[in-house]
């Protein structure tokens, strides 16, 4: 064997090794949480005394988990839909038109990704109080206010991913459609939208996952008897550390995995993200 081949193989091994370490680092917490969810005993300790599904059953026995899950799901879906209606046109606007405040607008739309959730939550809380006092209607702690808050954190993901797929669209295909008799609106529906569908689907998925898992901002926006799943988990952890939470997490991980697998069947996520 000559030196070049040995060198190339060594390089490949080093690369694979580094990738394996990275992957392990990401997966370790997930693996441990999943393992823990099946422990029999109440106080997690190693080695486990036995395995059981009792903690999964325990989730269903406690309405706060079921309700929290249901609320998070509803908020996530509605916030994502509203986010799509706002962010897709916004992405089109900042990629297709030249105007004075284009660059600042583009940054503004991505801002919620950078601002810490606690800051965002506080700001919204103050805003809601002001609004409530000024308009004399219920705002604080309502379902709509919660959804409105989540729309803000969904938007950047959709804007980012749709912008990325828009920049890959061959503009001449749109011109060709117009040349063949399609007006601007028909061109968008028939040509542009199919071309950016992967970005839209991926953006919606990431937006939904972000909304579903959001804790910091939601803490300021929930009302009595209206608690999202991450907050339920936090509150539960203040008093107990039994594996129920691990079981809840496993359910969450599974749901997100399923969502990704389904999405991946329609658009190759690896190509957009």
């Amino acid at each position: 064997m000559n030196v070049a081949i040995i060198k190339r193989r060594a390089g490949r091994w080093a690369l694979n090794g580094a990738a394996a370490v990275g992957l392990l680092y990401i997966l370790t917490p997930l693996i441990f949480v999943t393992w823990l969810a099946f422990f029999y005993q109440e106080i997690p300790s190693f080695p486990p005394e036995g395995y059981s599904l009792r903690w999964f059953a325990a989730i269903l026995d406690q309405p706060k988990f079921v309700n929290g899950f249901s609320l998070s799901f509803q908020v996530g879906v509605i916030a994502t839909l509203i986010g799509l209606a706002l962010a897709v046109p916004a992405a089109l606007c900042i990629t297709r038109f030249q105007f004075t405040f284009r660059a600042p607008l583009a940054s503004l739309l991505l801002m919620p990704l950078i601002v810490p959730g606690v800051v965002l939550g506080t700001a919204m809380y103050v805003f809601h109080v002001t609004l409530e006092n000024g308009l004399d209607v219920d705002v604080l702690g309502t379902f709509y206010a919660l959804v409105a808050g989540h729309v803000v954190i969904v938007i950047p993901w959709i804007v980012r991913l749709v912008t990325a797929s828009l920049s890959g669209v061959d503009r001449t295909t749109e011109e060709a459609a117009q040349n063949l008799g399609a007006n601007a609106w028909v061109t968008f529906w028939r040509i542009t939208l199919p071309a950016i569908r992967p970005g839209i689907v991926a953006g919606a998925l990431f937006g939904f996952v972000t909304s579903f898992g959001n804790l910091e901002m939601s803490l300021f926006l929930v009302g009595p008897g209206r608690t999202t799943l991450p907050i339920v988990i936090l509150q539960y952890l203040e008093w107990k550390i039994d594996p129920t939470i691990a079981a809840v997490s496993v359910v969450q991980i599974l749901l997100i995995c399923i969502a990704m697998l389904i999405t991946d069947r329609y658009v190759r996520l690896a190509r957009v993200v």
Partner: protein
Amino acid sequence: MARLDIQNLVKRYGDFHAVKDVSLSVADGEFVVLLGPSGCGKTTTLRMVAGFIEPTAGQVRLGDGDVTLLPPWRRNTGMVFQSYALFPHLTVAQNVAFGLEMRKVPKADMEKRVEEALALVRLSGYGARLPRQLSGGQQQRVALARALAIRPDVLLLDEPLSNLDAKLRQEVRVEIRELQRQLGLTTVMVTHDQEEALTMADRLVVMNEGTVHQVGSQRDLYERPADRFVAGFVGRTTFLAGTVESAGRFRTEGGLGLAVAGGTPGKAALSLRPERIEIAPAPLPGLDNDLPGTVEFVSYLGAQIDIHVRLSPADRLVVQVANRADGFSPEVGQQVHVGWRASAGQVFGE
């Protein structure tokens, strides 16, 4: 099909004049080529005809109607794009049917017309494929079929062959030209490739820096270029810089006195086509100009040979000779004589 009239078309971007006062008429069934280097305004002109760019001033008339202010989808033009611009998510048949759908052609009729259009470009049976499953040449033909299916008033071709390899390009040139004749299509093509332009056009329009320099047949442009730009752009030529001393007398910067046809006194450039110059080992007494020189460079191109001859420290000439079995083929460094008739050169004042 219809005639196309462009009148005093202007496009300005701020201070930049992309197109300055271009007028052109294309007769029904005529194939006109806009030829020029990149940035000369030819594509901008074509896009103003298609309606993608709104002119700053001037008029575009298609048939009897003024279409200057109509959006692209209200004009009946068929365009073939340089990148083909096929819709990647639609099949070949759906691509071709798109324009018919927009025109609300009944379904049964539509299928027939899609079939016809695909048959014209010899792609029958490819209807169910996706564009990415086709070769570049096939994609180009789909783009052509799509433009033809709508029976456009005018066919617009924007560098349609530049993404094909050289061999295919020569075939497709002939194919498009035959189809255009057979269907009597009024056609405007844009290209920077003069060979392509010369083989396909009925009439050529040479553009540079937003203006039309000359409109004419292949022979007009080559034999009687209107100005120095056209002489240099169409075909090959060597320019010798110098001055016209009096009508018929030209002195190069290197000090050579040459006989030329006409010319008005003043600074000028003499254009000499490489194939119109004779080269021999001995003097050429029968010609108006006969000069000794040294061969500096020879490039062997197969059918012909280019010989670069140094006439004076400031003057160098390219001579092209046919590669005949009995022909003269000098070596680098050899002393030779070059000669030409006064009428072979053309003088352009500055």
